Structures are given as C-alpha cells and as structure tokens.
C-alpha cells in the first residue's frame, strides 16, 4: 500500500492534449469499415430481391414490376448481409450514420425503366431513354397521413411540420 500513485498520471494529463475531441467543430474520421448506412446504385440493380430475402429485419422491400427498391432506414441494423448477398454488387455500406428524424422514414429508389428485351430487336426501338432515370425520392412514411401520390409527399412532409410550428407560435402569442 502506498500513496501518491496517481500523481504521475495527473501531472502527465496536465501537460498533454485532451483525450476528447471538440466534436461538432472537429468532425470524426470514420474508418473505412464503419457501418453507417446502405447506399444503392440503382442503375445496376436487377431487382432480384435477394437483399430483401436476406435482410434479418425485413427493412428492404423490392418490387420487381414497378422497379423500385426501398429501405426502412430505422429498421435497418447495418449488418451488411444484403451487401454480401447482392449478385450485382450494387449495394454498398457507407460510413455516415442515418440522421435522426421525427418519423421513421423509408427511402425509395426507382430504377430506370426496363430496357427493351433483346428478344425483339427487329422493332428497332432503342433502349429506354436513361436520361430521365434515377429518381431517388422519399416515399411516404407509415406515420404520416396517407398521401395522394407517392411523388409529392416530400413537399407535404416538409411543409406540414412548419405549418404546425407556426400555428403553435401563433397560439402562444395570443395567450
């Protein structure tokens, strides 16, 4: 038993840099393997549905007829099982985490319209135009009121809370 054992550590700490980082000002450098969120290269997706079958939480939905790929961001557990099982390697894991949100959002990605089957080349129709292709849109969330069309809700979602807050401020002012 002795005393003053901690003095060396204390003195060392007085003259060394802090062990912590000034977080928002000094951003964190993530290692390459950090499992943040899943990204999809929708152009090369063949909508085979392998990722949705492998997903342990059922976060991914693939609809082959409509050619859409959607992921429930807050159900995804970032295990990387889909990335491993993707036959076209169009899924990838990115380092940044999903940002906090007021609603459990679902991101839907629509693929380019299917190219004409090579079985009918005589029609002379060129492959479907790719110009209007990848439209990544945020679809409606289960919590949000039923939207009329899946293409507009992004606007609605962004305006609705603003309307609420302005109403709240107004009420508060009247009181």
């Amino acid at each position: 038993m002795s005393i003053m054992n901690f003095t060396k550590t204390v003195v060392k700490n007085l003259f060394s840099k802090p062990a912590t980082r000034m977080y928002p000002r000094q951003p964190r450098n993530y290692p390459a393997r950090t499992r943040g969120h899943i990204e999809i290269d929708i152009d090369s997706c063949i909508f085979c549905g392998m990722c949705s079958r492998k997903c342990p939480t059922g976060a991914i939905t693939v609809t082959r007829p409509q050619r859409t790929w959607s992921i429930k961001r807050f159900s995804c557990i970032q295990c990387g099982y889909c990335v491993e099982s993707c036959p076209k390697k169009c899924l990838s894991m990115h380092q940044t985490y999903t940002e906090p949100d007021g609603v459990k959002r679902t991101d839907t990605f629509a693929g380019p319209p299917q190219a004409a089957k090579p079985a009918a080349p005589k029609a002379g129709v060129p492959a479907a135009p790719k110009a209007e292709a990848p439209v990544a849109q945020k679809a409606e969330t289960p919590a949000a009121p039923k939207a009329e069309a899946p293409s507009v809700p992004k606007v609605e979602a962004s305006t609705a809370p603003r309307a609420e807050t302005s109403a709240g401020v107004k009420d508060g002012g009247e009181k």
Partner: protein
Amino acid sequence: MSTRSVVPFGPQHPVLPEPIHLDLVLEDEKVVEAIPSIGFIHRGLEKLVEKKDFNDYVFVAERICGICSFMHGMGYCESVEHIMNVELPPRAKYLRTIWAEMSRIHSHTLWLGLLADAFGFDSLFMQTWRIREKILDMFEYTTGGRVIFSVNKIGGQRKDMDAEALKKLLATLDEIEKDLRSITKTFLNDSTVNTRLRGVGVMTKQQAHDFGAVGPFMRASGIGLDMRNLGYGAYPDLEFEPITSEEGDSYARTYVRIQEIFQSINLIRQAVAKIPDGEIAVPVKGFPKGEYFMRVEQPRGEAIYYVKANGTKFLDRMRVRTPTFANIPAMLEMLKGCQLADVPILILTIDPCISCTER
C-alpha cells in the same frame, strides 16, 4: 436482537445502471439477507429463435448483451457449427480468438472504470475509459462497429484482418499496455483503494464451489477453472494459465481482472504471431439437426449455449446460461454480513450484466 428493517436496492441505482432489485434485510447497518428479483427487461430473445432463420439469428444472439456481443455471437455460431459438423478454417478460429480477447479487454476495462466510479475515484474512472476508447476504435477499424460487430456467421467470419490491421492492433495494444501499467499501480497499491477493497465481501473457495460461481469471481477465490482450456477457437495453440488469487475479497477480484487484461494482450500477441493465411469462412449447406452444449469463457465467466435443431431452417430451442445468472446465488451469500455502504461495490465486483441474464 436489534430491530430488522428492509431497504430496497434498485432497480434504479446510481452505481449500477442495470435493473436488479434487491430487498436488503438489515440489522442496524449490517445486511442479514438479500432477496433478489430480476426480470425487468426480459426481451424474449430465446423465443425468437423459433421465428428467425438460423443464419439470421446470429444478429439476434449478438444483441443479447452490449458488452460481450462478440462472444454471444461466437458461442451461438460454434454450437450450430458443431451440430452441422462444419470444420472452421484455421484463420477464422484465430480471428475469433483475437476478437474475443479484444472483447475481454474492452469488458474488463469497462468494469475497472465502473469500480473506480463506485468507490468515488472519478479521475481514475475517466483514465480507465480513456484506455478503453482505444480498443473500441480498434474494433471499429476492424469490424465496422464499436459495440455490435456483425462479423460472425455460421461457418466462419464475415470480415478479415489484413496485415496492416494486425500491425495497427499490435501498436494499439502496446499503447494500452503502457497506459494500463501506470493506472494498475493506483488500483492495486493505492491506500484509499485498498481500504475500500481489502477484506470486503470475502468468498471462500468452498463457498465459491458450493454456490457455483463462475469466471473471475470464482477464480479470485482460488478455483483455477477457465473454459478457454476446453479448446474452442485457437486457444489450444496458445499458451496461458488461468489467473487465480487465494484471498477471495473484492481486492482479489480486481487483481484477477487486471491480470486478465494483460493476459488477453499476451494472447492476442501470440495469436497475431501464429495466425495462418487462408480462407475465413467455409460454405454451409443444409439445415442443422441435433443438439449441442457449447461452453464459452466470457469476460464475466462461463456462458453455456444449448441449441436444439430439427432439420428445418428454424431452431427448436436456444438457451443461454449467462455468467451473471450463475453468480447471483454466490453474490447473495457474499452480501450476508456486509455493511450497507459496501453493497453497491460488492454487487459490482461480480461484474453483473442483468441484460444478459434476462435476455
């Protein structure tokens, strides 16, 4: 005889963030009896095995505990692999061993920090967790996660560590060892720490045996049992001796855990020196049929995994006997006769993980 009174301890307590409730029967300030109740955070993870594909269940098994998540995944995978007669590639065994020992360092440094916090030495707590941060960063660098690693799968590992990662790991371990040596002196020699730990909560060798204690709690009472000697992973190729202490008090438990960190560092160094090249996973076909008992030495002690499979993709039963569950009876015996003020520290010295226990 003085009057008896009952003081409730938990489920919310400043020292212990986890929900265990004890009714402490006191005679003046002395604890006569402790009556436990657990079950506040039961999540039904064992039942879930009947509804999840046995490959997907690895991710659930990992989430049984936030500290020994790697070992829970490993224990489950090893038991299913035994049922399916899958022979792991040697590199996968070594990787499992390295990550398991990293988990042990991470868990024991966490515990040391909590202990320092419990006896009110907060700067020591922060220093310990500063060291722990390095191992967590190393986890993120090699697996992509700091708490949930998702690197286990049935038949091997999902991710490999290349030569650069292994080199970086060794460099980090050197730093950790150096830092840890300096604060070890405070933990083991400092007079204030010693007053709080020496002779408090003595558990004799016979008691530890009779009440079925496991892990460092048991080894601090002089029983040198270590499940790593059973020969899973790459442990048969590595040299180590179980660390024991004869005293059986809180100080002995601290001593055993600190020495186990150094032992883990040594084991990782041995494993990195011996790791063979080759595949990290073998393809697994078909469904398991049969049953198996797997015993794994977790940071907190021996965990038992029982898996029963019926030849479909869903398992019949998966049972985990966690180390804390085995340690609770011994802990209750240890609490008898101690002072009320020592109760939080004594509960902490078994390194309780109530979330594991209740699954």
